[in-house]
């Protein structure tokens, strides 16, 4: 086994990621403008599960990715890949929200927030990317067809969901309607409150009984002492 062997896989993955990211940025003018404000800054992203470290530096000519680096980045973001991706879809990108999602941030918190926001607001012009490959006219036709198709799919999906809901709730009666569910939830809530009240009463009663017992035992004790002193 060669102790000095070095795998080039992380380098390869990083190169591909950089290529894709810069290509996407090329067609995302608004994001490019926002990134311009972060020029010269570096962001260390340490993905866990799977473990993959990545340094993203913002340069005048786009993003620069590295899988090995020395020293510290301006901001280090650590967390599971799924949590990071999920966070990019959330509206709240404050440090508290990142912490709640299991993401650790070291360094300039404001910078981290800005970076996550820029990534979240990525506005890639897919038509333009396609246009570079197959020409503007064909790209427009393809994206129009895709857009119409996606709209139709969205509408069909919604209709299917609505019909399925009606069938299962009204016809087969295997699912609750929202009103039935709300009533059930209110009943459960009322039951919970009743149980809480009952528990409180029982506790009060228990306390009352406990307070009375020493009195009884004291009166018994007094009675027995009186018997002792009697001639």
């Amino acid at each position: 086994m060669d102790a000095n062997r070095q795998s080039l896989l992380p380098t390869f993955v990083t190169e591909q990621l950089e290529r894709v990211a810069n290509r996407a940025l090329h067609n995302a003018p608004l994001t490019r403008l926002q990134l311009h404000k972060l020029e010269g800054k570096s962001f260390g992203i340490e993905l866990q599960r799977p473990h993959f470290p990545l340094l993203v530096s913002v340069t005048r000519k786009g993003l620069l990715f590295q899988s090995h680096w020395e020293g510290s980045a301006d901001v280090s973001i650590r967390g599971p890949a799924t949590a990071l991706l999920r966070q990019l879809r959330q509206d709240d990108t404050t440090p508290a929200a990142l912490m709640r999602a299991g993401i650790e941030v070291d360094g300039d918190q404001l910078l981290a927030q800005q970076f996550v926001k820029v990534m979240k607001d990525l506005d890639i012009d897919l038509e333009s990317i396609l246009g570079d490959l197959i020409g503007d006219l064909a790209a427009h036709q393809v994206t129009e067809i895709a857009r119409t198709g996606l709209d139709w799919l969205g509408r069909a999906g919604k209709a299917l969901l609505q019909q399925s809901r009606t069938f299962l709730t009204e016809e087969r009666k295997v699912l609750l309607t929202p009103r039935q569910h709300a009533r059930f939830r209110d009943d459960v809530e009322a039951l919970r409150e009743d149980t809480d009240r009952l528990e409180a009463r029982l506790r009060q009663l228990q306390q009352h009984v406990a307070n009375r017992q020493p009195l009884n035992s004291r009166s018994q004790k007094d009675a027995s002492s009186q018997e002792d002193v009697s001639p």
Partner: protein
Amino acid sequence: MSDDKTTHFGFKTVSTAEKARHVGQVFHSVAQKYDVMNDLMSLGIHRLWKRYTIEMSGARSGQTILDLAGGTGDLTMKFSRIVGETGKVFLADINSSMLNVGRDKLLDHGYASNIEYVQANAESLPFADNTFDCITIAFGLRNVTDKQKALESMTRVLKPGGRLLVLEFSKPVNPTFEKIYDRYSFSLLPFMGKLVANDSESYQYLAESIRMHPDQNTLKHMMRKAGLDRVDYHNLTGGIVALHRGFKY
């Protein structure tokens, strides 16, 4: 340097003056097709080797970097982005044709403001002592006539704390893999050179010069002898290429 001293030019033994002239001719001949041939011969892997070198350089904003024997400027391009406007990258090569191709390519890609071009011999670098934070020499050292002298010259111009990275063809670790690699180098490489660049001799020299280049441990020893500390190396692609790294303290 006296002309009666001899050295290797591929498998031939020639005088030191003759080697410099022959290497010059080889690179004048291949300069225009250098990038295409590199992609073809290494199946594009040379880009990953260079990228790994940059990652190991620890280069950062504001630093001064020397890309020695930088040829067509692949490393300079990336370093220029890393060091930014406050830093500087020197692209140096002994061969004017390679330097011209590199300069044109970098200008075409919009890299200009933080790059200087210097025609220089690695054995006697025209820079003051302690100038650079990092020096890289990628696929250049094996063409240098006096390698030890070149390593000493590089150490001299490195700042204390700076590092030298030598990316160079080396000796494959696995003997079976070495045989396959030998067959590829001596049969296919000159054939491809003939086909694409119409120059099989230069690529025959490339294969021979790789075999004559010091192996991993010899080069490590040479770097230590030149005054570098903490010298280590990483074998890439089974040892076809090795990245040596040393620090000046």
